[in-house]
């Protein structure tokens, strides 16, 4: 299944699964930790980004995003000498779809697709990536503001081979502001 058909299926199923409800558009910022999963040549780093949550039907939110990850260096020994490899920086944009449970404090599994530009010395490639995760959202005591904590797995096709992937676990904290809200 190509990423375009998967995206289409996600959106179509999300739309048909819901009914008309309040429409809202927000703007959010987030940041946190990025931890490579089984990557001997890439270290822990940081991630920050922007999101535009678009809430159309009661159970789901479509969320275009931009993110920037600064990979951490990794040092290894070879022939008695320590060598440091620069971490992989990742500039990404894409779309996540959130599926919300509860009122007040909300729990939401999410999944999405993105374009990931991976860069370090000797590497400069753009690869398709997939996001899977779980989040907890809550209202903040200021009008229009909400916060969330998310854990996600970011899976990006390995630039060296299409048969493998590079993966990062991400733990982020975010704040969103409701820019526009219309009742049905």
């Amino acid at each position, binding site marked *: *299944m190509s990423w375009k058909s*998967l995206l289409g*299926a*996600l959106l179509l*199923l*999300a739309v048909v*699964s*819901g009914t008309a409800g309040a429409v809202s558009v927000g703007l959010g910022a987030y940041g946190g930790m990025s931890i490579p*999963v*089984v*990557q*001997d*040549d*890439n270290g822990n780093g940081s991630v920050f980004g922007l999101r535009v949550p678009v809430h159309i039907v009661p*159970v*789901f939110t479509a969320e275009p995003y931009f993110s920037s990850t600064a990979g951490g260096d990794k040092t*290894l020994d*070879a*022939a*008695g*000498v320590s*060598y*440091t*490899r*620069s971490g992989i920086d990742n500039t990404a944009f894409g779309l996540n*779809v959130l*599926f*919300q*449970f509860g009122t007040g404090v909300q729990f939401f*599994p*999410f*999944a*999405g*697709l993105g374009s990931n530009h991976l860069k*370090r*010395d*000797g*590497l400069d490639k753009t690869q398709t990536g*997939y996001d*899977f995760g779980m989040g907890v959202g809550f209202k903040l005591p200021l009008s229009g503001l909400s916060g969330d904590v998310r854990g996600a797995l970011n*899976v990006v*096709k*390995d*630039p*060296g*081979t*299409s*048969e*493998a*992937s*590079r*993966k990062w676990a991400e733990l982020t904290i975010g704040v969103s502001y409701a820019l526009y809200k219309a009742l049905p």
Partner: protein
Amino acid sequence: MKSMRWILPGLALAALLGNGCILLSGQIEAHFDLASPITINPPATPFYIEHVDLNTIKEYSDNVDKLKGLSDIAIVGKFKNLTGPAGSMEIWIAPGTPPDPANLIALKAGATLLWGPGSIGAAPAEHDVNWNESSKLFSTVGKAVLIDQLKHGGKFTFYILSNGQAGNTFEVDQGAIIIVIAAGA
């Protein structure tokens, strides 16, 4: 309707797993230490031959049956010019363990440029090639030969050579090949 909220992420995960199961993979580092020191004296000794068997490296042999490709590579070490003017060094690769070539012409006819040229100043000079610098010096064609050997036996031959003139003496100390293999289910 609530079940739909789980179906959609499940569909996305199923698509990913169905796409060659790339989820179950990782990047494993292995390195092969070259002989040290390696000395090259053109024209009498214009190149050095290193037969590499990655099966002697645990990280490779443990993952060879799950090997998917090459995620990163570097050739590192202390590259020295002991005598003579500035020059450069290259590394060529040939599959398996072919007979030793008689000269540079025969070497280049039977091998492929993998890495370089890496320049080094007039003697006395030392250029410590690090991982980041080295990663930018690989040829696409040579890397393809290496990937093919990684997937089919892990045995290949390196030729370290220089374009130096008569009177040059080059030395490589504490050299190593660092490979990061992509391995998965």
